[in-house]
């Protein structure tokens, strides 16, 4: 049956998305809007949301010559509805669109742990989508995701993409000390990636600050941690006589061990306030000596950094924080092979105290963006607390001692975690106390936010509740483009998906606009570049972009020699 090619029909959209919760939607947006900037690659004329209503496939001459062999059944792994409802619906919708393109599709709904294993360890999948977070240094992440040497199980390159030229470009970038040169290299890297599309951002998720505007104000985001960052916290202003920052999390914290957590944001957001880092970033993603433990730094040579440490700072227990503590930290995580900091430890040979206020870090290999990729991420820990611990990653710590702007106060496991202000800190916060209550039920959270029992929502959850409550007079919101996105990744180890034309066609079939407008209530932006504009000068608009057009996809596949059989199922080009 012919379907309007410029639109996803409401009924089939709802059916595909299995989203009873999407009732009451406005009319669906067209699927063929052009995205992003840059030059749009495609068949020309089919983008731009035109009103053409050509019958799908009418011009593809779906000759059932059967000249090529059938493609395999493809499996799109999906998280359960309960784990992440909008993403679950989006994946179902994409799979439905791929089916319309002529792919034989299966959607396999899995519990998250199983899904993660299937994709990252076993490579037993065809398509995957999840929320990817980049931290402050995108190429470090890209190198992990796409380096040809990382394709063994569990090494990070689950897409199976292999490109020695890109490997070289990324290697050069990571070793390059000059910032401007690195910017140009980053642009070339993302151009290559967006041309080959081993992965495609479906949506660029925003960082969201959601708060009670009667109690707290002046929300400033930083790049990696959004509105939950160190920078946000030291700039927050309390309204009236409020002195407490009251947040929540849907599930309990696991540990108070800064070296033994699993890098989930619920832990990162606490430890970023409990501990200091050699370098802290401001809201322009630049190292800022005013708010960092180090007041100055310089690159001695391509494998040596020197940092000048504050000499008037102390740990929460009153002991002086010294250059020895800093050197101890870097040597300790390296010698003990702390898993959480294994990526950073790869670049650390050792650290040594030069004098009372100077620490020298010797690298094991050149790393240009050392401040962003290492010094900004490794928490400085007190030697007098840690030196006796033989297995730091598995230490059972109940009362952590750091030197950050907030001190540990109490931890009612499974219930609440509280911190108090450290008055002697060089970048003090304006509130006296911060606590998080564990509240799994979203409706309870919103009720508490509106009535002021809570005054901020660290989770920044983009969902229906936000859509319904954001206009409440007590609620304030701020959004900022983030380095996080929902990715679409085909497994290039599977037949057909190693063909760049096939991947481009699939990207053109992704219904990004409906996903953003209908499933995510218009909060995110449509994805078009793996390095988002949140990265400032590292980002470029000058990348290949793709129409959202099933016609373009079909035309591209046809040009590449693909055919469709009598059942409109796609067949590989003959000879493949």
């Amino acid at each position, binding site marked *: 049956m012919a379907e309007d090619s410029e639109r996803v029909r409401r009924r089939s959209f709802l059916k595909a998305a299995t989203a009873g919760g999407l009732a009451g939607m406005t009319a669906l947006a067209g699927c063929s809007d052009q995205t992003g900037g840059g030059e749009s690659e495609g068949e020309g004329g089919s983008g731009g949301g035109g009103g053409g209503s050509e019958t799908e496939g009418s011009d593809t001459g779906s000759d059932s010559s059967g000249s090529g062999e059938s493609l395999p059944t493809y499996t799109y792994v999906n998280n359960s509805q309960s784990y992440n409802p909008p993403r679950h619906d989006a994946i179902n919708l994409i799979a439905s669109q791929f089916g319309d393109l002529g792919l034989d599709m299966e959607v396999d709904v*899995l*519990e998250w*742990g*199983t899904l*993660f*294993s299937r994709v*990252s*360890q076993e490579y037993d999948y065809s398509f995957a989508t999840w929320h990817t*977070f980049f*931290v402050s240094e995108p190429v470090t992440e890209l190198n*992990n995701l796409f380096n040809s040497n990382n394709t*063994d199980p569990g*090494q*990070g390159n689950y897409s199976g993409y292999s490109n020695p030229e890109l490997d070289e470009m990324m290697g050069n970038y990571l070793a390059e000390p000059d910032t401007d040169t690195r910017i140009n290299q980053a642009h070339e890297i993302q151009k290559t990636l967006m041309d080959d599309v081993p992965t495609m951002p479906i949506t660029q998720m925003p960082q969201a600050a959601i708060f009670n505007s009667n109690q707290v104000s002046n929300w400033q985001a930083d790049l990696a941690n959004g509105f939950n960052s160190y920078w946000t916290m030291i700039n927050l202003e309390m309204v009236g006589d409020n002195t*407490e920052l*009251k947040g929540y999390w849907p*599930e*309990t914290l*696991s*540990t108070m*061990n800064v070296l*033994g957590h*699993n*890098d*989930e944001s619920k832990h990162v957001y606490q430890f970023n306030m409990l501990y200091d880092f050699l370098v802290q970033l401001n809201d322009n993603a630049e190292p800022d000596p005013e708010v960092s433990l180090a007041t100055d730094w310089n690159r001695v040579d391509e494998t040596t950094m020197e940092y000048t440490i504050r000499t008037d700072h102390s740990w929460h227990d009153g002991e002086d924080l010294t250059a020895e503590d800093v050197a101890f930290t870097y040597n300790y995580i390296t010698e003990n*092979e702390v*898993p*959480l*900091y*294994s*990526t*950073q430890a*790869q670049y650390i040979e050792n650290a040594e105290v030069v004098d009372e206020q100077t620490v020298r870090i010797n690298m094991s290999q050149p790393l240009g963006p050392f401040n962003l990729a290492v010094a900004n*991420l490794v928490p400085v820990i007190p030697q007098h607390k840690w030196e006796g611990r033989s*297995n730091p*990653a*598995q*230490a*059972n710590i109940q009362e952590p001692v750091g030197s950050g702007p907030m001190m540990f*106060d*109490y931890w*009612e*496991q*499974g*219930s*609440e975690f*509280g911190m108090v202000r450290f008055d002697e800190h060089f970048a003090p916060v304006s509130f006296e*106390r911060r*606590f998080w*209550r*564990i*509240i*799994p*039920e979203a*409706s*309870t959270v919103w*009720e*508490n936010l509106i009535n002021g*029992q*809570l005054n901020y929502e660290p989770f920044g959850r983009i969902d229906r509740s936000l859509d319904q409550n954001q206009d409440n007079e007590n609620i304030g919101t701020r959004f900022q483009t983030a380095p996080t996105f929902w990715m679409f990744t085909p497994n290039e180890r599977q037949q057909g998906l190693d063909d760049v034309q096939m991947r481009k066609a699939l990207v053109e079939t992704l219904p990004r606009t409906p996903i953003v407008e209908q499933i995510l209530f218009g909060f995110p932006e449509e994805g078009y570049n793996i390095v988002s504009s949140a990265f400032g000068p590292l980002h470029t608009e000058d990348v290949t972009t793709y129409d959202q057009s099933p016609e373009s996809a079909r035309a591209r596949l046809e040009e590449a020699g693909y055919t469709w059989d009598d059942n409109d199922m796609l067949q590989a080009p003959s000879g493949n």
Partner: protein
Amino acid sequence: MGKASFVIRRTLQLVVTLWAVGTVLFGLFRLMPGDPTSYVVSSQMTQEARRQIIASYGLNEPLYVQYVKFLQNLVVLDFGQSFHSNQPVTQVIATYLPNTLVLMLTAFVAAYAIGITLGVLSGWYRGSRFERSTVITALTARSVPTFYVGLIVLWIFGAELGVIPMSGMTSLGTQNASFWEMVFSVDFLHHLLAPALVLGFYFMGYPLLIMRSSMLEVLSEDFIDVCRAKGLTERTIMFKHAARNAMLPVVTAAAIALGYAVGGSVLIETVFAWPGIGREMVRAVLRRDFPVAQGTFIVLAATIIILNFVADLAYGYLDPRVTYD
């Protein structure tokens, strides 16, 4: 002599049952799809670091070695260390179980006190409007999902009327010196009220219906007529003779229900943000935290098995006609 051999035999059965439960749990968790490290590793870690983590959990050892170690530790009640918090599992259980027990026992005692009383009365007043209304109430209590009742209660009494707290065991930002100080505080009792009543409402239907059926059976027996012939008051016959004899099935049901209560109520704990063992068990299973999942399930199974055993013994005490042969 009969009783002693019964106790010994049942104790041996109990040990074998616990071994079987432990073995099944060990196998089940390792047969489950998914990677136990998936919630522990991060994209920041190298592959070598991930291998280290697996080795540190002992997950790289052959399955039979893991099993033998598991049994050896089980004998001395060492359930291992949580993959996620690095705490001993016993510490995890000690943290969450008391919270669950306070909630569950409050609900349980209230439900059984009210349920048994209503069951006695509805059996006694058979055919009356009272009986019909109590049976309908009991069936409703057992049929309506507890999380739904919980959400309705939260919405009406929490969000709309503001007379009950919306979440947790204490007010937001409250720090308690000790568990007992918390339990005996007015603030805690205020927080306990709603979840305990919702759970109690659910629990109540079971003893009510069993007691009613049992009462109807007892009331048809000859000794009730003898009691009446002796001129005993209706109240004495109802409570002292009929209800006491009708209690036996409720004792067994109560023992088993109490065992299950130790496992907490995941739904109620989630709706009311109550930091109990039920929620922690589910979290451990979902996150493949084998030690915590195994430990909590074994504690739950042991409690149910032991309480069953106690119920069997209590049966003989309550009904002299029961023998241990």
